[in-house]
């Protein structure tokens, strides 16, 4: 096993594709940092402005609606959202982070009320999902109590992490797929080397998945280093205890949240790797494997109504941020789609993948 592990690892780190993948993964974070700093694309100011515009338009839609007095709470809510965005803008302009934070808290409270009370404008306002709103309110309330500023844009390492968390799963998922898309196909390119080795399929498969996981971990670590080190060079590391909400209920400091998020991401990556290996026993083309794996991974986004009933499959939980924040529950409208259930399911399905993979390989050899 040791020999095979060493051989597979050497193959892994010498593969030009894998080295390019690692390089690109790190480069994405470097480029992303500068792009976000320059364009302020995900800054709170930008998103608040969009809400302000929407609030005004919706107000115009509903403020003449005299058919029901129950519209008054809606109008009051739209008013509250609009004024909150004004406070945020003011705080940013005057450079007062407390004002900005308080405005953000008011906005989130108003948005949460809109969600919970199912106001008419729920489908015509840009509202974050319910669990995210709950989590944001928790976070902002804690920050207010501790008299700390909220993350409003990309400056320090911690603010960069907090800002890009919702998008990380796209990158890590893509990295896992590209890493593993030819994991078992490789063998067919070296048939005469692979045939009749004194090695069981179990050892060969285990070695392969271990080395892939190890390299994946390496890529994640390199990415994390880039995410932390680059902003730190410019603006420092920031607050590593920044509170983030899990499932919209519990607050964890950023470093602990990252451990949870990282663990789930690793588990999701291992599932993707094992799935790709299993696919490779049927589909001997790396491109096709990539396409199938990618299509499977994004299917919960395309068909959330279907996955409401298929919550027991591992696929919805590949989006680590949605799983940890609880927005997956909102997306699928399925209360069972929680963090721990997700983690458990991913683990179970990894074992299922490996079992199927072992069966397929034994069949191949026989």
């Amino acid at each position, binding site marked *: 096993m040791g020999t095979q592990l060493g051989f597979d690892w050497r193959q892994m780190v010498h593969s*030009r*594709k894998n080295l*390019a993948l690692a390089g*690109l993964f790190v480069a994405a974070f470097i*480029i992303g940092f*500068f*792009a976000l700093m*320059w*364009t*302020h*694309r995900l800054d709170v100011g*930008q*998103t608040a*402005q*969009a809400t302000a*515009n*929407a609030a*005004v*338009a*919706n*107000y*115009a*839609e509903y*403020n*003449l*609606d*005299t*058919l029901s007095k129950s519209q008054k709470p809606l109008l009051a809510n739209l008013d509250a959202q609009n004024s909150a965005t004004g406070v945020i803008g003011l705080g940013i302009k005057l450079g007062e982070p407390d004002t900005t934070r308080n405005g953000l808290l008011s906005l989130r409270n108003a948005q949460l009320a809109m969600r919970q009370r199912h106001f008419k404008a729920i*489908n*015509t*306002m*840009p509202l974050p999902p319910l669990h995210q709103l709950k989590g944001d309110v928790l976070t902002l309330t804690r920050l207010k109590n501790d008299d700390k500023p909220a993350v409003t844009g990309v400056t320090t390492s911690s603010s960069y992490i907090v800002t890009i968390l919702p998008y990380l799963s796209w990158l890590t998922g893509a990295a896992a797929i590209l890493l593993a898309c030819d994991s078992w196909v490789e063998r067919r390119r070296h048939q005469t080397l692979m045939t009749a080795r004194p090695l069981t399929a179990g050892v060969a498969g285990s070695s392969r998945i271990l080395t892939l996981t190890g390299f994946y971990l390496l890529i994640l670590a390199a990415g994390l280093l880039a995410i932390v080190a680059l902003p730190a060079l410019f603006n420092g590391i920031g607050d590593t205890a920044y509170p983030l909400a899990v499932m919209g209920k519990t607050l964890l400091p950023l470093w602990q949240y990252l451990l949870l998020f990282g663990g789930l991401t690793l588990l999701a990556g291992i599932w993707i790797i094992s799935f790709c290996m299993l696919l490779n026993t049927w589909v001997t*083309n790396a*491109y*096709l494997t990539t*396409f199938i794996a990618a299509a499977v991974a994004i299917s919960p986004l395309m068909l959330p109504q279907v996955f409401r009933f298929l919550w027991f499959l591992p696929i919805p939980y590949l989006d680590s941020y949605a799983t940890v924040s609880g927005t997956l529950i909102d997306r699928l409208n399925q209360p069972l789609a929680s963090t721990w259930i997700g983690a458990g399911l991913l683990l179970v399905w990894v074992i299922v993948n490996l079992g199927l993979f072992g069966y397929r390989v034994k069949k191949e050899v026989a």
Partner: protein
Amino acid sequence: MRYFRFQLHQLLTNRKNLAVIGIALVALLCQFIFFPPNKAPAELPTRNALTRDRDKNVAFVNEPHGTLTAKWVPATREFANIETRMLNAQKQQHTQAYVKATLHYLAFLGQNAANPDAQSSPFHYPLSYYFENRQYPDADAAFANATMYRSLEPLAKQAHPDTATIKQQTFWQTLFRGAAGGWLTALLIITILFANDLLTSEQRHRSIARLLPISPWHAVNAKTFTVFTALSGFLVAAVAIIATFVIPQHGLGSLSAAIAYYAKDGMSIKLDPLALGIALPTILGLTFSLMWLFIRLNLLCQLLFHNELVGLVVSAFLLFGEPLYFMHGIAFSVPQTAYYLPGYMNPAAIVSGLQNFRYDTSRMSPLAAVVVIGSVILMLELVLFIVTHRRRAAIIK
């Protein structure tokens, strides 16, 4: 010719390329089935939405008012009248009257919706612009409103304008809307995927490919034309699918139907009608030049670096890199961004002036696109020529 035919055969039997074409055609089919690209624009409300809104406005006009709301009664009455005329014209199927009423409707909204001088105005642009998390939904909606107005204006002069043309659902109009909506980006992605391994795939056949009695320049040109030939066939198939879905229901349409071309010079905005008969060939020409650019770029990257990745990354940067340096609203501070190549990746957005709108300029015209894309192509051709005419030039290592 033999080399060209052989390479074309290789291209068309490559599994990756077949998969790309297959996926693209299936995606196109699915788009027409699930998300038709030619549904009526948000600026033209449905009969139900119009009736609901009209009834609401009429109810508002008829009820008693205090000083705060009384000021909106005249405007609301006018708006309700416009909506009534639209509904009556629809009911009577009097399309010219409908167009004229719609023009009033759009002009009214253009003046009264999202008006910063009229706070608490009851009039707004289609709410879908505010739900989509756009950065400047008012501006986007105003742009769509104004361009819709300009494209409907010529139809008001016709005695019986066609309904499908009014709703921009004819075949030619669908081609334009699809082009603006992402088909061209998809075509460029397919081009990149086709061209990405044109030379590197030959590394698996080194002793054959490296010592053939043809010059690298000839090989590179032959391979470029194979991609063009293959993709022309794909385009024909795609257009056939679009025609199958659109023409039986909405007709071919007229090439004289207009879109609007937007340009902003200082404080003055120009919105000129542009016939599809001019717009579509311009879009096609620009698209072909972008395809040529990406093919040659990928070939050059493979010649220099002997792998597929560099070409893929550079192409991705060009195709999707605009958000890295541009966001609506900051272009005024860095005007030269109007000449960066990534801003010219959607020919439909150039021809309709959407890029001028986003960059707050008049510089991003089709002519500018020709100059920018053309310059890059010239540079690529020069470098390719030099690289392939070196003494020991070879298409693979």
